[in-house]
């Protein structure tokens, strides 16, 4: 159908989306890059001047910066381990012949639809609160001292909350992959005397490898941007114990009004995300062919 006319029409149809995304990509990023070289504080905008590399030096040598990078990595890796391992296990379980599979699926997928502030506040108050949370009730039942989660283990607490939000996503995608596994192959392996472990290692895991890769990469993109969960629970504290890169930049921009510093921090967030994106694009790109 590639006549001259349709090709011209196609160009017109594509243009708005491409144009909008081009602007969306270039203008703000260009501005961030520009601001990152300025001494620019919103409290004192008249004093704005060229800063050279100062913002980068200042931001990257700040001990809080190193800690926030570390926290970001721990958060992402912690959530990935919990969700992928848990996701594989739960997907294998749900894939078995069980009663009420549809309802089980719905229950398992539900946390994914809970907006981050709600998820975090539910966990903070109903589940992990040292006085009135369910964990505290359980601890008291066994005669133990309740744990003050957000004061003692702030980062771990946030990891648990975020993992709860993303476990459904991993499970759903891995379950979808699992259900496309060839049943006859599994039966043949079973007839030949392959136990569950060898079936899992040689048949199931290789089959799910692609889905696991996709889960890891997509989750990483979102996990690098965790923000609301921190805002409503620990607010980054105590100290910087649960501040990730996003939260550190947010603090610089919105609480310290340090536009230049926040912009310099933003640039490293871009570098970090691009690193991950590179691999994701390759995985997704293969599917196009």
């Amino acid at each position, binding site marked *: 159908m590639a006549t001259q006319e349709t090709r011209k029409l196609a160009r017109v149809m594509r243009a708005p989306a491409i144009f909008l995304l081009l602007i969306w990509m270039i203008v703000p990023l260009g501005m961030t890059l520009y601001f990152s070289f300025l001494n620019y504080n919103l409290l004192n905008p008249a004093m704005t001047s060229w800063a050279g590399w100062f913002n980068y030096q200042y931001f990257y040598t700040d001990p809080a910066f190193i800690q926030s990078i570390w926290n970001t990595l721990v958060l992402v890796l912690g959530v990935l381990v919990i969700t992928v391992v848990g996701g594989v296990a739960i997907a294998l379980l749900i894939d078995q012949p069980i009663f009420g599979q549809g309802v089980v699926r719905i229950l398992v997928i*539900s946390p994914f639809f809970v907006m981050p502030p709600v998820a975090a506040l539910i966990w903070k108050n109903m589940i992990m609160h040292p006085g009135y949370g369910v964990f505290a009730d359980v601890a008291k039942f066994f005669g133990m001292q309740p744990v003050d989660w957000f004061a003692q283990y702030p980062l771990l607490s946030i990891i648990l909350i975020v993992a709860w939000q993303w476990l459904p996503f991993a499970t759903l995608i891995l379950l979808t992959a699992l259900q496309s596994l060839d049943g006859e192959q599994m039966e043949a392996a079973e007839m030949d005397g392959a136990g569950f472990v060898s079936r899992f290692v040689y048949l199931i895991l290789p089959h799910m490898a692609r889905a696991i890769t996709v889960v890891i990469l997509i989750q990483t993109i979102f996990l690098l941007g965790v923000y609301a969960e921190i805002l409503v629970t620990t607010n980054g504290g105590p100290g910087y114990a649960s501040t990730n890169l996003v939260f550190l930049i947010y603090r610089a921009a919105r609480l310290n009004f340090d536009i230049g510093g926040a912009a310099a921090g933003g640039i490293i967030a871009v570098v970090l995300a691009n690193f991950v994106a590179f691999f994701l694009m390759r995985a997704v790109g293969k*599917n196009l062919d």
Partner: protein
Amino acid sequence: MARAVSARRKAGYSVAAWVVALLIFFPILYTIITSLKTEPEAIAGFNLVPSFTFESYRTVQSQNDYFRPFMNSVVIAVGSTILALIIAIPAAWAFAFSPTKRTKDVLMWMLSTKMMPAVAVLVPIYLIFLRTGLMDTRIGLTVMLMLINLPIVVWMLYTYFREIPGEILEAARMDGASLWNEILYVLTPMALPGIASTMLLNIILAWNESFWTIQLTTTNAAPLTAFIASFSSPQGLFWAKLSAASTLAIAPILIVGWFSQKQLVRGLTFGAVK
């Protein structure tokens, strides 16, 4: 997987699966239960049987004007989705039915804009919103969320449109259908299911977006995400009230989500897992 399974094994798996499912669902369930308790009940220790009072729901509306953030969420989520569809449908259409040598590259580039971390452009967007008076307006947030989700919408629509066989168009043309008739009577009916599931997924994503909605609003245009986040500030022990507000905030999207869980996999993996 038509393997013969003994009834006992099936029962065992079922029990295990239900226990896991209920554990995962428990925080949501407990929130719904707590929302039906009185405040003293809510902090009186573990209890799964509420007194079924709707007091907290009434309080959330009368004290916090719950209806306003709710309407903001609806307007922003639905508005940004419709806006994105208007721009994305023609584009995805062109990509699917009139591909050029560069189509794949352009699509990959669109996807790559989604990888840009929001926080990297927080500073410029915040300043632009301040200067242009878009701060704390529904229209500003609607446009913002449209831009954020546009790549996913284009991609999802593209993967659906690509599955519409081109021969059908040729057949219609042979029968003398005009371009307009072709679109109206042949393509639209085939494309509608894809458009519908794209719309649902995007409404879910927009409803739950919690970075820009919190950054770019204060009170007037604050949707439910920002409204609920404001509950984090200490205001006494209002467990039941928080639960009621939370239940109201997640209920609509939970139901939409249950209906679109199959499309979710496809949409969020950009067609890499089906």
